[in-house]
């Protein structure tokens, strides 16, 4: 069976990208950015708080770390729930010990159903960012636009209501999007999105509809490659190896930021994984390693976004 000749047509083969979401730009060619107080490396720690439903639909695919066994898959359901009951409190303690103010990316359904958890997170201090409805409500190409629009609005509205915070940021479940997701985020007053892992600095995104006060949507890349779940749950590397990888990444970006200008070190954590008794010391080791450097500015993503806009508008 031979393909049609249009398989060799390349309608988007031109300068820049094959889409119009953001501009082509090499990091090393951009004007250097300095973070507040003359710091070179911004450190963003995100805690992902997630609800994996037992009756997983798996639409359009089974979310990583979700249910894998025939219904009812109690082992995975309860192992993930562990993070919201037990793991998070170990993680909060570790964060407090190093004076780290994180973002909490929380599924809106979880926030609505566990007001005590939300209260404790607020007491700890940090910025809530939207993380969709739950881990089985993915955003994907081919999804009816009305369905996705309702999902984004419900997630953002719910989180704003139960947290009392403006909720400026968004992290899609599994970092998966449709072609419309950035537009819908802007429509709902979201200012930054963490899904696109293509840079070590924030950068501007173009949306068709909404324009928030701060300008268009900004991408705040939340690195996947050093995430606890990616290294230990997907790649099945050891805890010790994860620590080494995170330290190596941090050391490299710190050095590059000294030589070339501001960089963003973004670490995404999952209490259901790193909050286990045998792993929490590894997190403590990582947090100790990334704390206390004179060139480091630790802040939640919204503050980093503001500083980025301030620095690049001045430039």
């Amino acid at each position, binding site marked *: 069976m031979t393909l049609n000749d249009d398989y060799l047509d390349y309608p988007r083969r031109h300068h820049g990208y094959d*889409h119009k979401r953001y501009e082509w730009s090499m990091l090393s060619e951009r004007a250097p950015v300095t973070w507040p107080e003359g710091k070179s490396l911004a450190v963003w720690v995100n805690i992902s708080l997630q609800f994996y439903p037992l009756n997983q639909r798996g639409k359009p695919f089974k979310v990583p770390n979700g249910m894998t066994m025939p219904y009812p898959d109690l082992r995975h359901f309860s192992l993930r729930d562990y993070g919201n009951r037990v793991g998070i409190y170990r993680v909060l303690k570790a964060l407090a010990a190093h004076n780290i103010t994180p973002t909490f990316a929380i599924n809106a359904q979880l926030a609505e159903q566990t007001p005590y958890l939300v209260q404790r997170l607020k007491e700890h201090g940090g910025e809530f960012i939207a993380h969709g409805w739950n881990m089985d409500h993915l955003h994907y190409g081919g999804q009816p636009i009305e369905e996705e629009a309702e999902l984004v609005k419900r997630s953002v509205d719910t989180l704003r209501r139960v947290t009392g915070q403006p909720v400026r940021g968004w992290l899609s479940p599994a970092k998966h999007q449709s072609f419309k997701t950035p537009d819908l985020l802007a429509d709902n007053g979201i200012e930054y999105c963490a899904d696109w892992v293509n840079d070590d600095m924030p950068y501007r995104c173009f949306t068709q509809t909404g324009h928030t006060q701060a300008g268009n949507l900004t991408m705040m890349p939340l690195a996947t490659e*050093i995430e606890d779940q990616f290294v230990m749950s997907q790649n099945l590397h050891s805890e010790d190896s994860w620590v080494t990888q995170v330290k190596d990444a941090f050391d490299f970006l710190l050095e590059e930021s000294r030589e070339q200008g501001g960089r963003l070190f973004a670490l995404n954590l999952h209490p259901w994984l790193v909050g286990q008794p045998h792993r929490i010391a590894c997190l403590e080791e990582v947090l100790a390693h990334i704390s206390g450097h004179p060139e480091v500015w630790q802040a939640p993503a919204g503050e980093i976004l503001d500083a980025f806009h301030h620095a690049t508008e001045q430039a």
Partner: protein
Amino acid sequence: MKESLGVYDYWAYDQRPKIEWPGGAKVAFWVAPNIEYYELDPPLNPQRNPWPHPHPSVPGYSIRDYGNRVGHQRQMALLDKYGIRGSVSLSVALCEHHPEIIQMCKERDWEFFSHGIYNTRYTYGLSEAQERTMIRDSMETIHRHTGQACAGYLAPALSHSERTLDLFAEVGEELFGDKGGIYTCDLFHDDQPTPVSVRSGKRFISMPYSLEMNDTIVYAVNKVEPRQYATMLKRHFDRLYAEGAESGTVMCIPTHNYQVSCPHRIKAFEEALEYITDHPDVWVATGREIADYYLANYYDAALDSIAAQAATAGKQG
């Protein structure tokens, strides 16, 4: 479908004419950065899905974009530091999308060879005429943007037909005579160059490129820890260096700027580069340089040796 493609003959590793690389080097060492473009919404191919999820596959697309936005410059700085000119396995549409990267490589006198148009357009299902058109497009694009006669081929996303090597050799001959279309990176059967027979009879070889040392295979398929990759690279080199005293070997590190250049991995890559280039008897070269040298000095002897081994076996049998 064939049981075997039959483009090279059996040839025992330990009974070959001795290869001596320039300067008495034991290993010809080359680095092949794959500089690729994956489309956000490519057309579907009935035999292979370009992405594992409904488009847009943001996780896959964005990390590959990281390679071009961020990773390329990091890798290039390292290759500069260790005196290595890259041999770029190029999704040639990158000449149009990101010519700034091409320019940087040109300034360093790097080699460019064809890796198809996009890494999301496969050879599967193409007619012979279509595949020839695609290969010609890729070689002409490289020539138009770099002035280079494309010498090597790595099929896009390692997707092949039974005719791929024949077509590449033929189009190379048509466009550039014996300067173009002289080596393939698509075969992983050897640690030395070997003759490959193509239907035109062109003098054509396989260049060791190593899937085993390919960072994407190592990291994304085999899920290796970054520092273990450095260990693997050093062990691989050590053995080829030792064996190279008997007859010259080839070591290639095929890289991807979205793999080796990630902040948690680049240190391991540098460690290996430093180790390898620190050895005295290493010929740091490009794919074309190795191919040209082999074709000029060892290709004919190789054909004789292969024939002699087969004849010996025939007598004994």
